[in-house]
């Protein structure tokens, strides 16, 4: 006597294959998800207490990165400008702008402005701006075209594999020291200058753990 209906045959075989594909798809999905901006937080614009526009200040007014990020060449931390730095200019221009009220308030009350961090590394990762600048890695390489960002967002994934891309092949990313802060610079022939700069700057491709993790 039959226990199952005819269709059970097709059904059972189909479901076996179905299961295989389902699992495969799930794995692929998770894999993609981990690399997606959703996970890395790329390109989502962070609202700041003051809507400071890098686009305006950098490409518009042509202010050098180091005018505000003073310690970027010397320290691990690039430095966020004190209110005083803003007011150097803004006590002359836009003195009444409502947009700048928080800045003036900060100076008045001696209360620092609390900026939202955009580029965040886990606390077990130690990144040093100074040495990267020194070895000819441009701001753009990691921060993207900040001069085109009204409000700054995170351009690159900042994942370990992303760091390794450069640490394994610095010659593909290194640029002349005088072009480090140049937002628009494009190499004519990276294959030519890359190896030369790696030699000149004594860049060693370091990928052992304690370079970043300690």
């Amino acid at each position: 006597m039959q226990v199952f209906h005819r269709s059970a045959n097709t059904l059972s075989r189909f479901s076996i294959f179905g299961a295989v594909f389902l699992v495969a798809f799930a794995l692929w999905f998770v894999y993609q998800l981990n690399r997606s901006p959703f996970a890395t937080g790329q390109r989502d614009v962070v609202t700041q207490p003051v809507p400071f526009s890098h686009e305006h200040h950098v490409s518009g007014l042509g202010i050098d990165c180091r005018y505000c990020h003073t310690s970027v060449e010397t320290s691990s931390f690039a430095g966020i400008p004190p209110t005083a730095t803003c007011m150097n200019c803004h006590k002359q221009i836009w003195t009444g702008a409502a947009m700048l009220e928080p800045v003036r308030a900060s100076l008045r009350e001696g209360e620092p402005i609390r900026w939202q961090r955009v580029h965040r590394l886990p606390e077990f990762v130690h990144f040093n701006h100074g040495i990267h600048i020194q070895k000819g890695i441009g701001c753009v390489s990691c921060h993207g075209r900040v001069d085109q960002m009204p409000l700054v967002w995170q351009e690159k994934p900042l994942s370990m594999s992303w760091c390794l891309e450069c640490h394994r092949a610095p010659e593909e990313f290194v640029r002349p020291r005088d072009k480090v802060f140049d937002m628009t610079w494009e190499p004519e022939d990276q294959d030519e200058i890359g190896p030369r700069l790696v030699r000149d700057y004594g860049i060693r491709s370091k990928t052992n753990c304690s370079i970043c993790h300690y």
Partner: protein
Amino acid sequence: MRPKTETWGLLAEFDDPTSLIEAAEKTREAGYTRIDAFTPFPVEGLHEAIGFHHTKLPMIVLAGGILGFVTGFGMQYFATVIHYPLNIGGRPLNSWPAWIPISFELAILFAAFAAIFGMLALNRLPEPYHPVFNVGRFVLATRDQFFLSIEASDPKFRRDETRRFLEALRPLEVSDVPW
């Protein structure tokens, strides 16, 4: 899909392996090709009796084993020597003796999968529905009875003729297997 024939075939029931085998051999000698036998346990020599001689399962398993070993070794070599070379305790990057155990395990694993799923595939299992189940007494095929079937799709199959032929083999009973 159902072929043209109005029944699946005929099913003859025997009550011990010996008579089943004799019957199966006679049937084959009679020139029937699409025959099969159903028993509660593997009966020695029955597959020859119904003219079924070899399976390519061992080859499949061998292939699975080789694939497993290569996969295992390749994965470890790639990860350790090519993708992220690290100095681990001063050992060489290609510490191939250390790759052996995992390669071996994967060889076994793949071979085992090949054996099981190969067998199921060749047997076209799972097949929860099969016409022979329509025969009431067929439930005894998993207890203590032995069955011989001739499919209607057999070129030599003529309904009455074949039934007469089977009854000549002195089974307990011959029954039609409806679709």
